[in-house]
C-alpha cells in the first residue's frame, strides 16, 4: 500500500468516524487546554502575588554592627563606622543572586515648617530606595539621580510628617527645615499606616544619600544597606556570603568581630514565604490533577474507540491487509486526530485565558513552553492508548473479529 493511499485511508476514516472521532479529538483538546490553562493560571497568580505582597520579600538588611568600647578609650558600645558605599558596590558585583543594593545613611533630625516641628527619622538613600520598598507617592515626584548627583537639598516626606506639619494641606513645593537647613519638599508619600514590621512607617523624611552624607551628617560611613535578592534565593546563605565578602573587604582576621550584621525582616518575610509556599503547593496540585484528568480522558476515549472497531479490523484482515499495515494505520489515525485535537485545545485555552482575567481579577500568564510538552505528551499517550488495543485487535483471527459485524 503506498504512503499516499495510507494517508487517504486515514483521512477518509476520520471523516467517516463521526462521534468516535469527535470524542477522541475532544479528549486531547481538553487535556492540552487544561494543561495550558493550569500552568498559565499558576504563573499569573505567582506574578500577582509578587506584585501584591509587601516589599520585604527576598530582602535583608546589612547593618553596621555595634562594636564594644575600645580598651582604654572609655565610652559605650557604638555602631561600626566602616560600612561604606564601596561595600554596596562590592555586594552588587560579587554576591550571587543579588538584584539590587541600596545604601542608606540616616539619623533622627528635627524637621520643621514655619517654626513648628518635631524629631523624625531622616533617611538618605539612592533613588532605588523608594522603588525597592514600594513607597507610593501621593503627590509630587520621587528623588532622582540628578538630585543625588547634585547633593540637592530636596526631600520626600512621609504621610505622617505631611499631616503633622501641614495640617492636611499638601506640602509639595514648600520649604521645610531639616536640622536647621532649608530643603524643598518635592514629593509626598501615600499613607502606609501600621505594618507588621513597624508601628510607624509614615513619620519619615527621604533625602538624597549624597545630601545626607555631605550636608546633614558630615560623615562618609553608612548605617545600613538594603539588599534584594532574586526570588527564591536562599536568604540565609546570601546573608552568610555577604558577611564573608565584607570581612574580606574590611581586611578582618579570623577571630576578629564582624563590623556588620545582617538582619532579616522576619514578620512580613514570614507571610510572603507562607503565601508563596501555599500558592506553589496549590498550583502544583492543580496542574497534577488536571493533567491526570486530561490523560484519563484521552486514554479512555482512544481505548474505547479502538475496541469498537474490532469488526472493521477483522474485515480488513480478511481482505488481505497485514497486521503491521493495520497497526500503522491506527497509530497514524490517532496521531493525526490528537494533533488536530491538540491544536483545538491550544485555541480553546487561548480563548479561555482571554476571558479568565475578568473572573480572577489578574492576568494569567500563558507559557509557550507548556504547549511544547503538553501537546506531544497528549499525542503520544493517545497513540499509545490507541496502539495497544489496535495491535491486540489485529492479533485475533479475522473470523472471530468478523462475528461481531
Amino acid at each position: 500500500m503506498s504512503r499516499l493511499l495510507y494517508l487517504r485511508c486515514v483521512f477518509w476514516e476520520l471523516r467517516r468516524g463521526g462521534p468516535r472521532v469527535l470524542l477522541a479529538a475532544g479528549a486531547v483538546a481538553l487535556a492540552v487546554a487544561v494543561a495550558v490553562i493550569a500552568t498559565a493560571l499558576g504563573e499569573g497568580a505567582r506574578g500577582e502575588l509578587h506584585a501584591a505582597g509587601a516589599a520585604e520579600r527576598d530582602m535583608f538588611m546589612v547593618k553596621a554592627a555595634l562594636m564594644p568600647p575600645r580598651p582604654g578609650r572609655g565610652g559605650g558600645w557604638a555602631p561600626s563606622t566602616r560600612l561604606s558605599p564601596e561595600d554596596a558596590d562590592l555586594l552588587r558585583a560579587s554576591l550571587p543572586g543579588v538584584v539590587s543594593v541600596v545604601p542608606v545613611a540616616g539619623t533622627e533630625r528635627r524637621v520643621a515648617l514655619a517654626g513648628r516641628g518635631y524629631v523624625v527619622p531622616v533617611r538618605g538613600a539612592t533613588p532605588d530606595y523608594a522603588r525597592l520598598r514600594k513607597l507610593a507617592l501621593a503627590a509630587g515626584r520621587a528623588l532622582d539621580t540628578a538630585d543625588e548627583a547634585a547633593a540637592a537639598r530636596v526631600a520626600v516626606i512621609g504621610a505622617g510628617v505631611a499631616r503633622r506639619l501641614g495640617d492636611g494641606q499638601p506640602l509639595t513645593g514648600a520649604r521645610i527645615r531639616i536640622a536647621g537647613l532649608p530643603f524643598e519638599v518635592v514629593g509626598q508619600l501615600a499613607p502606609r499606616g501600621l505594618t507588621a514590621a513597624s508601628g510607624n512607617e509614615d513619620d519619615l523624611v527621604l533625602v538624597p544619600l549624597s545630601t545626607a552624607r555631605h550636608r546633614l551628617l558630615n560623615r562618609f560611613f553608612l548605617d545600613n544597606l538594603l539588599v534584594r535578592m532574586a526570588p527564591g534565593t536562599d536568604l540565609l546563605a546570601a546573608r552568610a556570603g555577604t558577611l564573608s565578602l565584607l570581612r574580606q573587604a574590611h581586611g578582618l582576621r579570623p577571630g576578629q568581630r564582624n563590623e556588620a550584621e545582617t538582619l532579616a525582616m522576619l514578620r512580613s518575610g514570614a507571610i510572603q514565604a507562607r503565601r508563596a509556599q501555599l500558592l506553589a503547593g496549590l498550583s502544583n496540585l492543580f496542574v497534577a490533577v488536571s493533567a491526570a484528568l486530561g490523560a484519563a480522558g484521552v486514554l479512555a476515549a482512544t481505548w474505547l474507540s479502538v475496541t469498537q472497531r474490532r469488526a472493521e479490523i477483522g474485515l480488513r484482515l480478511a481482505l488481505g491487509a497485514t497486521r503491521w499495515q493495520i497497526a500503522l494505520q491506527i497509530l497514524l489515525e490517532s496521531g493525526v486526530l490528537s494533533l488536530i485535537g491538540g491544536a483545538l485545545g491550544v485555541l480553546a485555552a487561548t480563548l479561555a485565558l482571554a476571558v479568565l482575567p475578568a473572573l480572577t481579577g489578574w492576568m494569567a500568564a500563558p507559557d509557550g513552553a507548556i504547549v511544547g510538552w503538553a501537546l506531544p505528551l497528549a499525542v503520544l499517550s493517545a497513540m499509545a492508548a490507541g496502539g495497544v488495543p489496535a495491535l491486540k485487535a489485529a492479533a485475533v483471527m479475522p473470523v472471530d473479529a468478523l462475528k461481531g459485524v
Partner: protein
Amino acid sequence: MNHALMLSMAADRLVRFPGRTILMGLAFLTAVYPTTLLQMLGGGAIEALNRFVGQVYPVDTVSLYPVGTETLTLADIEAVLAEVPELRDWDPVVEAGRRDLKAEGQAARVRVVGWSERAARVGRRGVTAGGFLSAGDVRMRAGVALIGSSTARRLFGDASPIGRRFTIDALAFEVKGVLEPFGVDPHGDDQDDLIVLPYTTLMERLLRVGTVTGARFLVDDAARVEPAAARLTWALAARRGLAPGQPNQFNLRTPAIVTEEVARVSRLFAGFTLAMGLVTALAAAKLVAGLMLAMVAERTAELGLRKALGARPADLRRQILAEVAIVALCAAALGLLLAALTTDALTPWLAAAVGMRELDPSASTLAVGAGAALVAGLAAAWLPARRAAALDPVAALR
C-alpha cells in the same frame, strides 16, 4: 412499567455486567475524587494562611500616639472605650526612650517601653522563653522585664537570660521572658533590641509621669477598623472640646497598606481556587461524558432487543438514566469518602507544614467536583439513551 420494576431491572443489569459497571464507576470516581480533594485541600490551606496573616499583620489594630501638645491619660482611654463599642481590647504604650542598662559588668543603651499584660494579644507579640507580663505584675508595679533577643545577647551572651538581673537608674529588674524575635524594621531599627516593663512600673517608679505615650486598640471586626478609628477621633475630640473637623494632634494610625495588601492577596487566592475548580470540574465532566457516551453506544443491540419485545422508548431512557444515576451516586459517595480519608490522613502532616487545622469542607466545596461529574454523566447518558430508544428495533438488532 412501574418505578420499582424499573429500578430492579437497572440494578439487575448493573450486577449482570460487572465489568461495565465497574468501568462506569471508575469514571465517576476518577472525576469526583481529585476535584474534591483539590477543593478541600485548597480551602483548608487558604484558611490556614488567613489565620496566620491575621496573627502576624495588625489587620484589626488602631494605634493612637498623640503628638505636639496633646497628651493621653488612662482616663482618656477609659472614656474612649466607653464611647466606641467596636474596641474590644486595648493596651497602653509608655516610651522611655533609650536608657542605660547595667548587668553583671556589661552596660548598654537600650530602648525601654512599658506594656500591660494584654500586649501579647494586642501587639501580637509573645515570648519564646519564660513568661509574659501578668496582670499581677502590672497591678503590683513589679520589677520584672521582658527582653528582646538582641539585647539579651548583648547583656548576657548566649546563656539563658531568664531570671537574670539588671538595673536601670539604680532600680533592679529581673528578666521574666524573652520576646518573640521580629527582626529589623524598614527603618533599620532592630526590633529585638528593647526592654519591656509593666507600664505601671515604668510610669510610677521610673519616669514618674501621669500620661502614657500612646495606646493600641483591637477592633472586633477587621472590616470596621476605619469607622472605629473615626469614632475614636470624634470621642476624643468631644472630650477635648474640639469642634468636628477642627485639626487635632491625636495621630491615629490604621493598617492602611496592610489591609489593601491582604485584600488583594485574598482576591488572588479566591480567584485562583475558583478558576481551579472550574477547570478541573470541566475536565472531570468531559471524562465522564465521554465514557457514558461510549457505554450507551455499546448497548445498541441490547436496547434494540428490548424494544422488539415491546419496551416503550421512555422506559428504555429511564432505565439507562437510572443505571447511570445509581452508579454515579455510589461512585460520587465513594469519591467524597476517599477524599475525606485522604485529607484526614494528610492533616497531621499539613498541620506541621502549613499550620492547617482540621478541615471543615463546605457544601459548595463538595458540590463543585461531585456535582459537575453527576450532571455531566447524566447529561451525557441522556443523549445516546434518547437516540437508542428511538432506534428502529430491526436495525438495532442486526
